[in-house]
């Protein structure tokens, strides 16, 4: 995977490593919301919610609307899909297989060199 993608993945999993942020995402899965609407169910201050939203935004998990006054927050499915793919069995199957193939071809190379020297 390209390093930019990996960095993005780090941000996504970092953002998901917090129960409040996961709850915000779960709330947004059922539709966009303003910051005020997000503050209400969490019993947290608006600055705290805003801080969490910034982390989610940097991870590409949410976007903010342009309307200056309300700026509704929306879930961005693409970033989550990347994380879901990484977790997915097929990709992991190959990543682990290719780790082992890497070791194995190194071994093949060594054996070949030994044969050449004889």
């Amino acid at each position, binding site marked *: 995977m390209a390093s930019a993608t990996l960095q993005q993945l780090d941000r996504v999993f970092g953002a*998901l*490593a917090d*129960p409040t942020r*996961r709850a915000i*995402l*779960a709330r947004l*899965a*059922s539709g966009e919301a303003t910051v005020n609407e997000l503050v209400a169910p969490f019993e947290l201050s608006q600055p705290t919610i805003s801080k969490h939203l910034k982390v989610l935004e940097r991870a590409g998990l949410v976007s903010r609307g342009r309307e200056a006054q309300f700026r509704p927050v929306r*879930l961005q*499915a693409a970033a*989550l*899909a990347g*994380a*879901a*793919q990484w*977790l*997915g*069995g*097929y*990709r*992991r*199957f*190959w*990543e*682990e*297989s*290719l*780790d*082992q*193939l*890497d*070791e*194995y*071809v*190194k071994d*093949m*190379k060594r054996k*070949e060199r030994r044969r050449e020297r004889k």
Partner: protein
Amino acid sequence: MRGSESTQEPVADREVVITRVFDAPARLLFEAYSKPEHIMKWFGPKGWPVTLCEMDFRKGGRFRFAMTGPDGMQGTPFGGEYLEIVPNRRIVYDNGFEKPGAERMIVTVTYEATAAGKTTLTIHTLFASVAMKNEHLGGGYERGTGSGLDQLADLVAEMRRQESP
């Protein structure tokens, strides 16, 4: 291949591409793919060695593998046919589990020599349907490592439901 229902879904929604650069020449990577004695040393995730490995490595030839998990039980065999073999360049095969009604995938492995003896290996998988792709990519959910990941899985499932027309 199954009926026309699967071919209506766009290719882009049914494919997965995995790439890795190896510090080895293409011919060694090709070799590692071409014989059971090699396959049994690397194919499969860690802890899941290939314990059944039959292969007739030529165009039109068939292969049949099965892996044994940490519980010591051999899993359902899978396999298919080699559709194309270009030495040191490309292998195309179809693959599927030996289960009634199991869908199949077409896997294209390419070996591309880059600078200084390195090789870019690309595994392109075309699943028969989007559902099959999701099933394979989502296989990691069941062994999610904690409630955070479980929640993520729920969330993605919810989003998929909303996105599908």
